[in-house]
Each structure stands twice: as structure tokens, then as C-alpha cells.
């Protein structure tokens, strides 16, 4: 599923516009977790992360794990320093007013699978 379509279908707010060309990013898998050690160990490379955590380590962990995009759930938004760091790293950040369950359900319905599906 192309990232620009995901953003459109889920009504995500773009926190790092123009950092990636969303039309060129294909998201096949996703992961949802609020424990970053778990994200680092299990998130699928090239995938999308849904999380409540908004601190700077999210960017470090997401780039280390090779993730393509992060969606902050439940209306959470990181501070400017986190956004600028992500922009430098080429990591796309989004925010959604929906909770994690809702976001993941809609992603699944769009064809984005979990790491083992």
C-alpha cells in the first residue's frame, strides 16, 4: 500500500511534509508497540510503526530498526526537536486523533499486514 494512500485513507496529519516522496514508499507491514525495546527487536524493516511514545528515542529506534514511517496515536504529537531530527534522518512522522486499535484495524483493512502474516 502506497504511503500517500495510507495517509489519505486514515486522514493522518503530516508532521514531516516533504521528507519522503510518499508515492514512492510502499508499506507492506506494520507494528504497534509502546515499548521501544520491543520495537527494536520486532518491528519489520521498511514498515510503519504505530505508537503512543513521542520522545526523541522513538526516532533513534525507528531509524535503527529501518522503519519507513511512524504514526503517533491518540492525537499525540512530539516536540519540534523530535520532528527536526526525524526530518534529518528521512523518517516520515504522522499524527492521528484515533487510538492505536482503530489505526491498526484500518491499516489491516487496507492490506497492511503484521510482521509475520
Amino acid at each position, binding site marked *: 500500500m502506497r504511503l500517500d494512500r495510507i495517509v489519505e485513507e486514515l486522514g493522518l496529519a503530516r508532521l514531516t511534509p516533504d521528507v519522503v516522496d510518499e508515492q514512492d514508499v510502499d508499506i507492506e507491514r506494520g507494528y504497534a508497540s509502546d*515499548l*521501544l*525495546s520491543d520495537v*527494536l527487536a520486532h518491528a519489520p524493516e521498511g514498515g510503519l510503526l504505530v505508537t503512543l*511514545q*513521542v*520522545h*526523541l*528515542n522513538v526516532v*533513534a*529506534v525507528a*531509524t*535503527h530498526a529501518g522503519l519507513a514511517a511512524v504514526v503517533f496515536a491518540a492525537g499525540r504529537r512530539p516536540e519540534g526537536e523530535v520532528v527536526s531530527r526525524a526530518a534529518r*534522518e528521512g523518517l516520515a512522522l504522522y499524527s492521528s486523533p484515533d487510538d492505536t486499535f482503530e489505526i491498526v484495524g484500518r491499516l489491516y483493512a487496507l492490506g497492511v499486514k503484521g510482521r509475520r502474516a
Partner: protein
Amino acid sequence: MNVCRADLHVHTALSPCADAAMTPLVVVAWAVDEGLDMIAICDHNSAGNVAAAQRAAGDALCVLAGMEVTTAEEAHVVGLFPDAAAALAAAAEVAATLPPAGPDYAAHFGEQLLMDEDGREVGREGRALALASGFTVEEAVALVHRHGGLAVAAHVDRRGFGVVAQLGVFPHHAGFDAVEVSPHAAPGSDAWATAAAYGLPVLRGSDAHRPEEIGAARSALRLAAPTFAELRLALQAADGREVLDA
């Protein structure tokens, strides 16, 4: 008795997320400049720069040995220890549970610089200090106590890495000696009141990762002298020692 101005949560360049300018000497110089009588060096999951900061300080101010443990639940627990040796012994136990810092680690998380008192790099920490240790909150508190230290629930008002944010409620059973609030929680604020309601002494720590943040939040302590033993008495509100609300 004197009123001692203390910032008991300061990082150095050993913490991957801290400014490389945070050499032991720079930290001490800024703390003195800020009029602090006591600071604690609390790097993530390590105490490797504590002794250098203590040597850099000499008699200028008291530098307590500390460490900020990231628990398995990704909550931050600050340990304040009687001396650098105790902090290092506790840190060795924490390090044994951390993965090694792989080849791309520093590019994503930052450098982990071990330094001498003059700010010269003497090595790099090989464990991934930015990640969660194997210690649960309860185990981290017990670790600190086993090494003769005081356990502080770091920045309990914060959503990221605070024990309340990570666990949902304050873990009264863990046996913390104090709670710490961030610079955002001024005395009298709602965040301060929430922290005070946990029933433990409330410390204010800057959690400084950059020189200009040192002393941005500080505690006023009534002590006979700025020492670890006196701090312990203040947290117990014993013998006229106490944590003042300012």
C-alpha cells in the same frame, strides 16, 4: 544548618543523547556558575564519568555519584550512591543486561564518551546505554539500595520514561526514597501537587543534557553540609535536615 542548592540529575557526554560538550569539567564549571552546592552525575545506565567529574570539581562543589537506570518497562530510576565505587558496582550489574552497541548504534543514538577530568576522551562505552536494561522498576530500586544508594523516581511528571506514564500508577511498593519532577513542574503547580501526593520527598532535577540546562530545576535542601549522608537524612526528614519546597 545551611540551605543547599542541589541539581541531582545531570548528564555528561557519556549519555548518548547528551551534548558532546558535556565534559566533566564543563558540567562542574556550569554548576558552580549557577550557584549550585551539589550536583549528581546521572548518565543513562552507566557511572563511567562520575569519578572524573568528582576530580574536576575538587572542593568547588559536591558531586554525587549517580546513574539513571532505564528499566525493562522503559521507566527511568535515578540511583544516588555514597561514592563512585558503589555507583560503578551497580552500573556493572546494569551493563551486564544491556546489548552491545552495534556498528550503526552511534549514528542513530549518539556517541558515549568516557572522559577524564580535563575533558579528554579516554574511551567509548561499548554497551547500548540508550536501551532498556533487564531490571524491572522494583529490581532497579533494590539494586540501588543493595549498593547503599537512594532511589529516586525520575521526572514523574513526564509522559516519556516516567514511572507513572509507563506503569499507569505510582509503584508505592517499589520502595523509592524520593520522587523527582522536571523543570516543567514548578512548586505549587498541578504537576508538583500530583508528585507530592505520592507521599515521598519531591526533588527538582534539571535532567540536563546540555550545559545551559544545568540548574534549570533545583532543590533547596536544609543540610549541615552538602554530602550524600546529609542528603539521606534530608530525604528521611531526620535530625533537622529536610527538603524545602522551593
